[in-house]
C-alpha cells in the first residue's frame, strides 16, 4: 500500500515532461514519414514550382543560357492555339463517350458477377484481365484484332456482310481508341463497384423483396441509390483519367511497325495531352508545353469541383448499417 502511493506520483508526468514527451513524439512521427516528406519536397514540390515558373519562360529543355521570362505569352498563345482547341475538343468528345459507357458497363458487369452464379470467379477474372494487361500489349491486341489483313473483326463481319474491308485504324481510329480504353478500364471499375455492392447489407434487399418488390425494382430503388457514392468515385476518377489519355493514341498508329515516341497519331486521335507531349518532347517547347499542361490541370480541377458541387444533389451518403 505504501509502496503504491510512492510509485504513482513518480510515473505521473509533470508539465515539462509532458512537453518533452510531445516533442519526442513529434520527432518520432516526422522521422517515420521523412522518406515521403523528403521525396515530396524533391520529387513533387520543387518540380511543381519549377514547372509553374517554366510555363512563363521560353525554356527549350536544354540550354539555360537562353532562358528568359516571357510573361503570360505562353498562356495567351495557348488560348489562341487552334491545334490545342481541336485537341481539347477531341479529348472532351472521347471523354463524353468513354466515361458514361464505361461506367454503365462496369456497373452491369459488377451486378452480373455479384449474382450467385456458377463460375462467377472465372467471369470476374475474364473481366478483370484486360485491366492488368499493360498498355503496350493492349494496343497490340486491338491492333491485330481490327487489322484488315489478319484480324478477327473483319472476318466476323464478313459472315454477315461479304467483301467487307474496313481499315479500322485509318477510317475509325477514335472508335478503336474508345473501345480499347473502355475494355482496359472495365475491370478496375468493376472491382470498385463489387466492393460497393458487398457493402450493402442484404437485409435491405430482403426487406424490399418481402414487401413484394421485383428484382428490377430492388436494383432501381435500393441498390442504385446506395451505390451513388461509388458511382461518384468512379465518375470522378474516370474523368480525370480520360482527360489525360496519352500513350494509347501515340501507340495506336495505323502502321504495323511504328510504335515509337516520335510518331504522331492520326488527326482524329490527336488528343490534348498528345499535343502537349509533342510540343514538349518533339518540338522542345518546354515552356509552352508546360503552360498547356497547367491549362489542362485547371480544366481537371474545375470539372472535379463542379462534380463535387452537383454531388450534393444526387449522391446519397447517409448509410449507417
Amino acid at each position, binding site marked *: 500500500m505504501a509502496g503504491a502511493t510512492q510509485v504513482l506520483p513518480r510515473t505521473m508526468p509533470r508539465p515539462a515532461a509532458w512537453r518533452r514527451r510531445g516533442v519526442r513524439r513529434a520527432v518520432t512521427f516526422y522521422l517515420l514519414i521523412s522518406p515521403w516528406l523528403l521525396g515530396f519536397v524533391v520529387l513533387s514540390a520543387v518540380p511543381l514550382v519549377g514547372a509553374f515558373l517554366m510555363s512563363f519562360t521560353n525554356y527549350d529543355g536544354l540550354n539555360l543560357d537562353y532562358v528568359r521570362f516571357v510573361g503570360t505569352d505562353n498562356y495567351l498563345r495557348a488560348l489562341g492555339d487552334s491545334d490545342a482547341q481541336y485537341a481539347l475538343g477531341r479529348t472532351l468528345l472521347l471523354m463524353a463517350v468513354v466515361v458514361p459507357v464505361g461506367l454503365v458497363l462496369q456497373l452491369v458487369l459488377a451486378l452480373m458477377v455479384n449474382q450467385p452464379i456458377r463460375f462467377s470467379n472465372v467471369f470476374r477474372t475474364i473481366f478483370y484481365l484486360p485491366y492488368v494487361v499493360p498498355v*503496350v500489349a493492349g494496343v497490340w491486341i486491338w491492333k491485330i*484484332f481490327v487489322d484488315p489483313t*489478319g484480324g*478477327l473483326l473483319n472476318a466476323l463481319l464478313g459472315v454477315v456482310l461479304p467483301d467487307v474491308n474496313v481499315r479500322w485504324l485509318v477510317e475509325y481510329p477514335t472508335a478503336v481508341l474508345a473501345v480499347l480504353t473502355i475494355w482496359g478500364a472495365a475491370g478496375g471499375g468493376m472491382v470498385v463497384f463489387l466492393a460497393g455492392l458487398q457493402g450493402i447489407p442484404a437485409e435491405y434487399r430482403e426487406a424490399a423483396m418481402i414487401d413484394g418488390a421485383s428484382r428490377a425494382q430492388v436494383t432501381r430503388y435500393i441498390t442504385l441509390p446506395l451505390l451513388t457514392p461509388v458511382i461518384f468515385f468512379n465518375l470522378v476518377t474516370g474523368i480525370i483519367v480520360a482527360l*489525360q489519355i496519352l500513350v494509347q493514341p501515340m501507340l495506336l498508329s495505323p502502321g504495323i511497325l511504328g510504335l515509337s515516341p516520335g510518331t504522331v497519331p492520326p488527326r482524329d486521335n490527336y488528343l490534348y495531352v498528345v499535343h*502537349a507531349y509533342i510540343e514538349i518532347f518533339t518540338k522542345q517547347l518546354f515552356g509552352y508545353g508546360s503552360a498547356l499542361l497547367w491549362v489542362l490541370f485547371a480544366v481537371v480541377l474545375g470539372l472535379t469541383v463542379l462534380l463535387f458541387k452537383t454531388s450534393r444533389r444526387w449522391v446519397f451518403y447517409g448509410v449507417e448499417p
Partner: protein
Amino acid sequence: MRWTTTYGPVLIAATVFALPLFWVLVTSLKKQSEYGSALFPAEPQWLNYELAVALADFAHFAANSLFLSGAYAFLAVLVSALVGYGFARHEGPGRNKLFVLVLATWMVPNLVLFVPQFVMFARLGLTNTYWPWILWGLGGSPFAIFLFRQFFASFPRELDDAAEVDGAGPLRIFLQIYLPNAGPALAASAIFMFLWVWGDWLYPALLLHQDNTTLAVRMANAYADPHGNPLQTVTMAGVVLYVLPLIAFFAFAQRFIVRGIVTTGIKG
C-alpha cells in the same frame, strides 16, 4: 428460360472481353504465310515463341524490366509501409494536413509532374540510368501510403503498448509487429507497384536508351524479317510472353492475398 436470362448476358460479355486476347494466342501460333489467309493455324507453330525470344534479345530486356520493377516495388512498398505506419500510429503537428498532401499528389496529372522531373533528372545526369525509379521508390507511393495507413489503423493498439513496456522503439515495433502482419496489404501494393513499372511505356521511352530500356519499350516495336517486312505472328508470340508472367503472378498472388486476409481475420 431462367438459365438463359442469367447466364446469357454474362457469357456474351465474357466472350467479347476474351475474344481479342484469344485472337492474339491464335495469331501467335500461325505460320507467317497463314497470317491473313487462314483463320486458324493448320498446325501450331511453337517456333514463333523461340523466334520471339531469340530475335529481340528478349531475356536481356526482360531482365531489365524485372530488375527495375522489382527494385521499385521493393523500395516503394517498404517505404510506404513505414510512412503509412507513421501516419496511422504516431502523432505530430500538421499530421492531417500532411496526409491531405499525400492524397493531393495522387491527383496531380502525371505529365504535369513528370515534365519538370524529366528536366531535373536530365540536369543531374540521371537520364539513361535507373536512378529515377530508385528515387521514386525511396519517396514511397501515395496510393500505397494510403493503403497502409488504412490497414494499420485497424490493428489493435494493445500490441504497441505491450511492446513499449518491453522497451521496443517505434522502428522495432514496425519491423517486428506491423510489417510481419501486413501480408495482404504488402502483397496487394507490391503487385500494383510491380505492374506499374512492368507495364509503363512512357517513362522508360523518355528516360532510358535502346540498350537499358524495358521490355515494354522493346515490345512496342514489331518484329520484322531481314527485308523489313513485319512478322505479326512472332510479334504476337512476344506479346504473349510479355503478358503471361503478369497473369501467372496475379493468379498466384491472388491466392496469397485471400490467405492473408483470412489469417489476419482470425488473428484480429
